[in-house]
């Protein structure tokens, strides 16, 4: 796969993942730009992988978890405000409850938030999440339990049984 083909066919899904992970478009852009510069440099190797998008997704995850604002380095974004026809939903009026949930999500520690995104947005298992985060499944369960408790989300019996079976 070439970089162009990756950008045309795989990058949009990676960007959606970054947007959900970061919960903030500006931060997601910063994280993805930083990752893509490295991806572009190393494409000879990354492009030869069976699933380069999975590798890039992991790079985005790691970059998000380790992100520190780089005030010394300016990487401007393209001025796409006018080109962006997407409308931000008015959560305050139409989805008050979701708005509250999103606000609480934004306050979670990054690793807890990442675990929730990987579990409930990406649909990964605890084992897969543990491999991505380079930790034990028990640690993932700990992150998830604390995050769900903070958000007052009731875990389904299915998830509970999955946990206890491990």
């Amino acid at each position, binding site marked *: 796969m*070439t*970089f*162009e*083909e990756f950008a*045309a*066919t795989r*990058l*949009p899904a990676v*960007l*959606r993942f*970054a*947007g*959900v992970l*970061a*919960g*903030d*478009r500006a931060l*997601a*852009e910063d994280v993805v*730009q930083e990752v*893509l*510069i490295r991806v*572009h*440099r190393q*494409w*000879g190797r990354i*492009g030869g992988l069976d699933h380069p998008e999975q590798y890039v997704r992991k790079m985005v995850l790691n970059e998000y978890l380790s992100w520190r604002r780089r005030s010394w*380095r*300016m*990487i*401007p*974004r*393209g*001025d*796409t405000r*006018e*080109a*962006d026809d*997407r*409308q*931000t*939903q008015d*959560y305050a009026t139409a989805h008050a*409850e*979701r708005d509250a*949930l*999103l606000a609480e*999500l934004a306050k979670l520690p990054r690793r807890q938030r990442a675990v*929730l*995104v990987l579990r*409930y*947005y990406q649909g990964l298992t605890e084992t897969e999440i543990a491999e991505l985060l380079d930790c034990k499944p028990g640690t993932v369960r700990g992150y998830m339990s604390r995050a*769900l408790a903070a*958000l*007052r*989300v*009731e*875990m*389904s019996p299915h*998830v509970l049984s999955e946990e206890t079976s491990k």
Partner: protein
Amino acid sequence: MRTEEDLRAALSSLEDQAPLVTSVLTPIRRNGSRGLPRRPIPRMRLAAGLAVAVAVGTAVAVTATQSPGTTAGSHPQALPSHEVLRTRVLDALSSATSEIVYEHTRITASTIAGATGTPDPFLPSLATGTASEIWYYPWRAQAGQQVRGRELTLHPDGAAAWDVGFNYLEPTEAQEVASGELTTVDYAHDTWSEQRSSGIIADGDSGSPLSLWELIHNETWSAVGRTELDGQPAIKLELKGHSGYLWVDARTYQPLRETYVFSGAGAEERINGSWRNLGSGQATIVTDYQYLAPTAANLAQLTVPIPKGFR
């Protein structure tokens, strides 16, 4: 108490925070982020210290504007050997190092459904007739040398869509990433911007003359035979693995035309807030090359004009 479905729905709603493809690719591509799809980037980096023969002054303006002719027996002389052909094409490219390379790229046949020309993502349009004009000067810069270029993307009706200019100092091999300025004019919204970027990747730009040099150098081609292009003798090369061909002038060995078949399978675009797949299909992309002397008139083409009234 909230449910897991509430959480899934909340997380999915954050897809609206996904960056635009154009906003994350602009800083890492000195151009082309809003341009037409290009031939795949050659995998090998240009090795440092390769010999460059510098020929100053003489412009070799070769225009190829008609469809390639068929391979014919009217050019009975044998092809040079692969190695000789390789050397002559590389020498011809190197000799144009001080010139402005002008590329005219257009989509001549597109079967990609749903190619509507929306500005995002990545591909402005895959409709037949979409075109771009690109200028590089110099096409192969030394470290520390000022590099200028421009890419103008045109709708099928000839109206301008995007006009992007770049201006940066060629980085060293160790630096890889250059600092410079990008000027962007968005004709769809009557806006323009100037950005200073320290994130310009200055090598491996697919479709650039430099990448052509790498493609020939890296042996990813084979000679097909002698032919004619716009009435002049040419040699046709097949680009291995790229579904494309390259025609070089049979006398000067400079590239005249390149074709590349772009597959749209899996490409997505976002329309009215919803992602949709463009579906299968292909687009044939044709690029003609010209080599221009850096005269005042030709250099003026490198400047992106800001239309009156744009903000």
